[in-house]
């Protein structure tokens, strides 16, 4: 059987040769003639009125073609930058234009653009743009932002409060009345900078004579950019093409329509020449959105046996200076904060505030890392307070396999999963009981070993159209076109827009299995709005659950047509013909088969087709599943703390993940490796630090510490496979799971190691100094 020959095979990624040899073509590599270089003049003041912009000296500089300010372009913005509902349709937010008009609200906000014949000329001239600021006091603290008398960022909103909404179900008062143990804890989600290896970049080319616009952008969402560029620029959508060429990572940071996509296009339309803007790293740390930046306050009601009765979390979300397009998506964290556990009541409150910092938006996991960090820290806090082992606390509270499909208090339904199995396997892998004995032994020697668990679940595969329309304000589905050519080779077009995920490889595997065409004869195309129908792009670990399955369904449709053509060619009844391994034959006589290549030829030599059948061998699918998908797993970190320096060393990192069917297990492992590394980055290394004056102090990779391979252990990965019942391939998502799971595993391990010092929490990133201080705050006395 050809089926399941390719699905499940760890074939090498076809994307890699061009990437590892440096021949991939990113936006900056595109050949362009007569290009105009754009440099963006950015605010150096976090909060100020613009009292004047003098562009005279910049315009006089060598090579300068034009300089534009926000006021000069305002009449050309047909609409402000888009903002979607994202769980809080009632939120208040201001209009946000690609260039600041009369006020700046964060360091890095675009103020003017300089267009010149060379990049160096544009950069030199940008330094000659004189912006006069009347400084206003900045707001750089979430809680201070909504205090009485705080400076207000947006007069049109009236205060710095965007929303204050409840997500509650069950009788929380009863839960707390019943509680034998009550715990209150503040958890910090520090501000993070996404740091894709390739910063953003755009080339926009408006052809005046044709009135057509092409935008090449390093984006996760070419299809959305097309729609919004058309709306904002007042160009018919049919005249806009957006291409995401090679894109060097996104992690959510390229999920929205950005000012520079609009500004390059506007400038190109004005100048009649292609305009290019490439973000440099210093710009990237300020001008591309940040992630997380939240405070979570939680009250926990539990019983002495470790049963969690209910939780009351408040999420304080720092939106930054504006509401970004998906800026309230992180409120999803509130909806899924119940995690893998049953409880009687949930009383959540989500508050969004504006501060004078770079806007925040989706960052790998987007809401789910926050939810997982919350609930997994809750489990460990309950374990510490009750003295019940953290493993037992989890087992006691788990949703059981017999409860599946399980509906949460807030009404989401999990598709499948036995959470005990991944946990049991992970415990076996680390020899949990042996580790606990070793921990006790080492403590006697003044060595501090810590074991941290994280038994996460994740919502992904966004997602069914009805709930995503209601929640996010956009109907989400998967799209594919499968097109078999005259010679029997095939092209697959997908609606997802990969930027490192390996869709070209895995989706070819999916189509190869259904069609029996060799995988190398199947080309997968993406990231160009001109090649196929609307797609919903790539974010939220959605692609394989949606577009990957759409490929499967389109291929099945093609297979069905191929079988009909074959029946006609074989002069047999349709019902007697089977299709298998790229051939069709009458049941029982596989020696007399017609191949997919012969069928394809007939499909285009339409005189050979059955009467009434249209030519071609092609199918299109818009796939709308019945539910989200819910991957899960158990991660265990084993750390040792250097008692003298506070440094954390990760001795082992074990992960057992269940993402349903694995099309290419090597690609899955790659996603996990990167994801776990990124979550460890948050736990131990990364933090965007602003000073009180509103200046970013971590604006370069010298100060913003992204972990490298040398800073990480070897990950030990295993899998269980519970196919999702909501899509034909049985796939779930895996792009964010590692990040979602790993931060709490690491922090739980550190807190566990520091238990003898009475430490109950350490905020991220757990820097050596912070850990050292926690160990020595009582003069190093142990409890």
């Amino acid at each position, binding site marked *: 059987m050809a089926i399941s020959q390719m699905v499940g095979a760890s074939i090498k990624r076809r994307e890699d040769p061009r990437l590892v040899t440096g021949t991939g073509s990113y936006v900056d590599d595109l050949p362009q003639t007569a290009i105009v270089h754009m440099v963006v003049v950015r605010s150096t003041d976090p909060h100020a009125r613009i009292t004047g912009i003098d562009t005279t000296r910049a315009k006089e500089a060598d090579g300068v073609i034009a300089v534009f300010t926000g006021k000069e372009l305002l009449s050309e913005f047909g609409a402000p930058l888009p903002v979607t509902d994202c769980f809080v349709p009632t939120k208040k937010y201001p209009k946000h234009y690609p260039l600041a008009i009369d006020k700046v609200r964060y360091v890095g906000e675009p103020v003017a653009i300089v267009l010149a014949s060379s*990049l*160096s000329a544009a*950069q*030199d001239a940008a330094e000659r743009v004189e912006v006069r600021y009347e400084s206003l006091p900045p707001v750089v603290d979430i809680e201070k932002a909504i205090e009485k008398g705080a400076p207000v960022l947006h007069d049109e909103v009236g205060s710095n409060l965007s929303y204050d909404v409840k997500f509650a179900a069950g009788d929380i008062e009863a839960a707390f009345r019943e509680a034998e143990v009550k715990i209150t804890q503040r958890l910090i989600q520090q501000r993070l900078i996404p740091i894709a290896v390739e910063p953003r970049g755009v080339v926009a080319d408006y052809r005046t004579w044709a009135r057509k616009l092409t935008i090449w952008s390093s984006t996760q969402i070419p299809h959305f950019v097309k729609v919004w560029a058309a709306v904002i620029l007042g160009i018919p959508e049919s005249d806009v093409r957006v291409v995401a060429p090679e894109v060097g990572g996104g992690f959510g940071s390229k999920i929205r329509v950005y000012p520079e996509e609009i500004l390059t296009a506007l400038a190109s339309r004005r100048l009649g020449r292609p305009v290019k803007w490439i973000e*440099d790293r*210093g710009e990237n740390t300020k001008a591309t959105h940040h992630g997380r930046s939240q405070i979570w306050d939680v009250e926990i009601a539990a019983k002495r046996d470790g049963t969690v009765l209910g939780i009351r979390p408040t999420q304080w979300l720092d939106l930054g200076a504006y509401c970004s397009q998906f800026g309230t998506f992180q409120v999803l964290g509130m909806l899924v904060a119940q995690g893998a556990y049953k409880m009687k009541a949930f009383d959540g409150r989500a508050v969004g505030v504006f501060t004078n910092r770079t806007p925040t938006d989706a960052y790998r996991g987007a809401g789910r890392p926050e939810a997982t960090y919350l609930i997994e820290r809750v489990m460990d806090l309950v374990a510490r307070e009750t003295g019940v082992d953290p493993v037992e606390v989890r087992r006691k509270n788990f949703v059981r396999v017999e409860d599946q499909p399980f509906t949460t208090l807030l009404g989401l339904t999990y598709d499948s999963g036995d959470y005990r199995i991944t946990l049991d396997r992970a415990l076996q892998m680390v020899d949990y009981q042996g580790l606990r004995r070793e921990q006790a032994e080492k403590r006697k020697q003044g060595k501090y070993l810590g074991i941290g668990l994280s038994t996460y679940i994740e919502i992904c595969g966004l997602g069914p159209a009805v709930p995503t329309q209601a929640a996010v304000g956009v109907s989400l589905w998967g799209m594919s076109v499968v097109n078999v050519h005259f010679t029997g080779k095939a092209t697959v077009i997908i609606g997802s827009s990969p930027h490192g995920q390996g869709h070209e490889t895995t989706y070819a595997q999916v189509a190869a299995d259904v069609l029996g065409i060799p995988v190398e004869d199947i080309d997968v195309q993406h990231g160009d709005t001109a090649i196929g129908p609307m797609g919903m792009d790539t974010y939220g670990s959605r692609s394989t659950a949606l577009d990957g399955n759409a490929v499967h369904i389109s291929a099945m449709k093609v297979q069905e047509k191929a079988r009909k053509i074959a029946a006609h060619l074989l002069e047999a009844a349709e019902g007697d013909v089977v299709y298998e391994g790229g051939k069709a034959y009458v049941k029982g006589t596989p020696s007399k088969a017609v191949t997919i290549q012969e069928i394809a030829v007939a499909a285009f030599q339409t005189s050979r087709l059955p009467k009434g059948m249209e030519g071609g061998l092609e199918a299109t699918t818009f796939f709308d599943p019945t539910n989200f998908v819910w991957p899960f797993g158990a991660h265990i970190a084993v750390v040792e703390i250097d008692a*003298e*320096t506070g*440094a954390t060393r990760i001795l082992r990192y074990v992960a057992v993940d269940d993402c349903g069917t694995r099309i290419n297990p090597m690609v899955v492992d790659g996603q996990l490796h990167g994801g776990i590394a990124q979550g460890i980055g948050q736990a131990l*290394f990364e933090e965007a*630090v602003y000073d009180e004056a509103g200046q970013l*102090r*971590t604006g*370069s990779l*010298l*100060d913003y*510490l992204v*972990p*490298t391979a*040398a*800073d990480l252990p070897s990950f030990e990965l295993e899998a269980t496979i519970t196919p999702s019942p909501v899509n034909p391939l049985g796939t779930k998502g895996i792009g964010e799971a590692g990040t979602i799971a790993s931060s709490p595993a690491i922090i739980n391990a550190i807190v566990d190691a520091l238990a003898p010092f009475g430490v109950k929490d350490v905020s991220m990133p757990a*820097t*050596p*100094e912070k850990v*050292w*201080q926690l160990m020595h705050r009582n003069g190093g006395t142990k409890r």
Partner: protein
Amino acid sequence: MIPAAFDYVVPRTLPEAVAELVKRGQEAKVLAGGHSLIPLMKLRLSTPSFLVDIGRISNLNYIREEDGHVAIGALATHHDIEFSDLLKKKLPLLSGAAAQIGDPQVRNRGTIGGAASHADPFGDFPACLLALDAELKVVGPKGERNIAARDFFVDTFTSALEPDEIVREIRIATPPTGSTGTYLKFSRRSQDWAIVAVAAQVTVSGHNVANVAIGLTGMGSRPLRASGVEQALRGKGAHDEDIRAAAERAAEGTDPPQDLNGSPDYRRHLAQVLTRRALEQITAHH
């Protein structure tokens, strides 16, 4: 970012290079490996209008032993120093420190002369040169002069070099038998600058410490000697309790900075821990 416009010249000899510096005055900067200067220029934090690239001057890249000294040419790269058999044998402090600088790209391009001239208080070589009582041979319009490491490092990014002088060679007296060293560096990521690092060179004679030198990185605006530790240990037994007591004096007379990576208190503490560990590591071999 790309640097502001600058002119560039490639002299073939040291006198030519010095002549260019004399001609251009304060506007000129010497370019060697470029791994400190070029990033600053790209950020436009440094905007020299003239670069004198000494990278192609011959006979400046060597590591050899002569007249009881180890002589290292200014253009020897960190990689050359890391892998030099002579240094691994005679000055493991220096080769060991080189292995901990930046990443392979930086080590392949960066030079010891450049690193010394840059006088970064967080650089790794300055504290080593200080602990090893190195001498820097420098060439200027008036000829050659020698500057002792203790006089060379003046302040943050400030050395005793005149603007028209260039480091030609670094000379270190070959340590006697029984003398060895180590560089212990504490940073948050493998390729980062040190939060604190300790360069220790110890001469053990019998069971006694005949001589000891401790250089500190990240404990002030220039590399410092932990003279309190040196006094406490010199001529004493190399026992654990002696070492522990001596190491507690590591932060005496220092003025560590406050930055994102550590507070002054934490740095003082780290200096003590790293000093003790370095001394324990060295004396454990005896």
